[in-house]
């Protein structure tokens, strides 16, 4: 089944991405192709450029050179077609200060036209263990609860690609175990996943391919693939 999924057209294609901040080159020549049913984990030390790569993949940061495509469409984070298919939980996710936890999930489900939104919202709310906090405003949540809410926003809406930046951050041990199982199940259903992670358990359980991103060597950031199964 995974073989069938992988043979489908790629969901995400990144070609020769390069990014510098001022004189520092953060990423150079990074390429990646992700097909349905694949989960690619970016690993590497702090400052290696993983988050910058993810931000370029979702269109939050424009690469200096190179190109990102989602299902053949040039990546633009304002393109509604891309927004319909790509869910991302990276460090720029914001919440409405005056809407409660459950209202955020409900709003996203309804915005995407999910049939019977209340049922799916209740299920996801229970899954991310935020039922007791359903009426809380986001500003009062603990950092772990905020992370669970952010993950919940990705699971109440349709998606064909999921991009996650260190999703295990601030989760307790049970939370990491749940997340690993959830992402494995998502992958088995044909979802393409790209995640950056420092959690070996999560990477081992979820990733079908690991890309080790190295910190810049001299003026260059070098990214290469370990167990290269498809990264260009």
């Amino acid at each position: 089944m995974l073989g069938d999924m992988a043979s489908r057209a790629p969901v995400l294609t990144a070609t020769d991405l390069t990014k510098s901040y001022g004189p520092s080159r953060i990423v150079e020549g990074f390429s990646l192709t992700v097909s349905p049913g694949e989960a690619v984990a970016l690993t590497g030390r702090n400052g290696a450029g993983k988050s910058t790569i993810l931000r370029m993949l979702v269109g939050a940061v424009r690469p200096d050179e190179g190109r990102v495509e989602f299902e053949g469409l040039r990546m633009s984070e304002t393109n509604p077609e891309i927004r319909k298919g790509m869910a991302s939980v990276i460090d720029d996710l914001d919440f409405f200060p005056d809407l409660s936890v459950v209202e955020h999930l409900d709003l996203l489900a309804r915005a995407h036209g999910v049939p019977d939104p209340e049922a799916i919202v209740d299920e996801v709310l229970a899954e991310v263990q935020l039922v007791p906090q359903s009426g809380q405003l986001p500003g009062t949540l603990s950092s772990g609860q905020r992370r669970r809410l952010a993950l919940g926003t990705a699971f109440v809406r349709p998606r064909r690609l999921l991009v996650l930046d260190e999703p295990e951050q601030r989760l307790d041990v049970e939370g990491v175990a749940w997340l690993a199982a959830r992402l494995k199940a998502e992958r088995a259903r044909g979802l393409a996943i790209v995640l950056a992670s420092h959690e070996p358990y999560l990477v081992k359980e979820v990733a079908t391919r690991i890309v080790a991103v190295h910190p810049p060597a001299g003026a260059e950031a070098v990214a290469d693939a370990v167990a290269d199964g498809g990264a260009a």
Partner: protein
Amino acid sequence: MARARRKRGNQHAEPKQISPEQFVVEVPDDPYAEYEGREWDFAWLPEDETEVVDEGALHALVKSWRHGRATRSIGDVLSDAYIALFSVLMIGAMIVNVIIGSQASSAACDTAACLNGRLLVPWGMFFALGALTLSFARLFGPVLASAAEGFWLMEAPIGRGRILRGRLWAIIVGAAVVSAAVSAAVAAVAGEPFGVVGAWAAASGLVASGLVAWAAWEQSYGRVRPLRAVQALFTTLAAVVLTTMVAVAAGWLHVEPPAWLGQVPWFFAAVGGAASVAFGAWAHRRLEHFARGRLTSGGSLVSGLQGAMFGLDLGLARDILVDREAIERGHVRPTAGRWTGAGALVWRDLQRLARFPRPLLGLAGAILVPYASDAIGLSLLTPLLSAVALMFALVPTLGALRVLSRSTGLARMMPFSTAELRTASFVVPALLALVWGSATLPAFLGVTGGVPRDPAVAPVVAVACALGGLLAAVRWQTAKPVNFAVPMMATTAGAVPPTLVFNLVRGFDVAALVTAPILLNVSPLWSLGIAGVLLMILRVGFNMEEMQEQAKEQQKLLDAERARSGR
């Protein structure tokens, strides 16, 4: 490196077909194994007894660190302050000149009714200043300490009274000075004689200082409810005075002010002065009981706001206040959503308004503005003042638009284009603007002594002002923060990003642009035209980087097409 080069060489190749076996990767079972047995260097405290700390010396030490890191001399600061003060005075003089000029040219306020209505302006300002003072006092403390003081000094075994007493009295005196100055300026612009201006300045200043001293005393007990109650009372009185002023000036209500009314400001001043001394002394005696959390919470709010104000980012400053209010509230009763697609956003906006109806009070206040402006003889400026008042009233109703604009994470999760998202966020504020336009129509017909307009023209003016206020609020909420990464502009105050200056006038620029044809006595249809153009721009946003990127992409396609056809 060789691997990287090989990878780049393959970058344009079709994706490989992957067999399931290749999905199996090796990850070490114990990633910490390689650090086992490693020698780490740890730092430990000496075994000696700790010394007794003197709070004064500790404070002086922190002060000397801060002064030691100063990058500008006192001369630089005075020079900049002179330029800033000069600019403020110049702009202030221009504004006052415009107001006085418009008063003189309109000559609309020469009836007994209008003059009696004007007498109420200082009263309205007095109650409004009282409400504002309590609001700020509640928000910031009023006594506060920085996070650094909270962490470094208040954790130490020292008496906090010595650190706080100076700032307690500084805040009490500062409130008096600011309130007196504002009150005096408003009374003077309203045309009051010098004696009356002085009386109201004393009343507003001393009552504000009394309120701050009382708030400080309440802070020592951790109470805020009495402050809320008195703030609500002052707000209600300000609204009543404003409404009465309009009614008197329009001739709907006849009031003959009794002679003793002129002595009331002195009575207020006496009460305020006594309260500031009494409550100030009691608060001083209780300085040791001020909770550290409450002190530093005000301090961190101030430092957050300071950061926002250094970037002249009023939107960020408001975000900080909104977040703080939401944290104080903490919990709401969740309500079910309705509708799907962009309609879900509209429904949530309606629910927000039902849950937090305070913006409706602002809208009610904004409805009074054109009437009040006409009533005190500022008819020529009424369209601009009305649009600006509506802008302030609508800003709180555009909270969703603000969150979706300030960072892209949440907007990226929504399946809509920027234009669709913004349009959905406009709907409820646009309905409120429509209500405002209908309610202010009589003012634009000239019923309160303003410019009399044809019944066919007045609705156009009302709609134009409503659009001006709405679009100004949208501009205020969607303006991007200052980008310090762009080339800077050289000024006497140093390098300044070009957008920094425009950030301060955001919103006001749109209100002025839309109402300019009406102020210049040109057909108000021009205002509608300008509003239409601005609506189109604000609806889609203005992303220069993305537009440049799209242009480059088009150019590349064109070049490729030319190369193919051999031209």
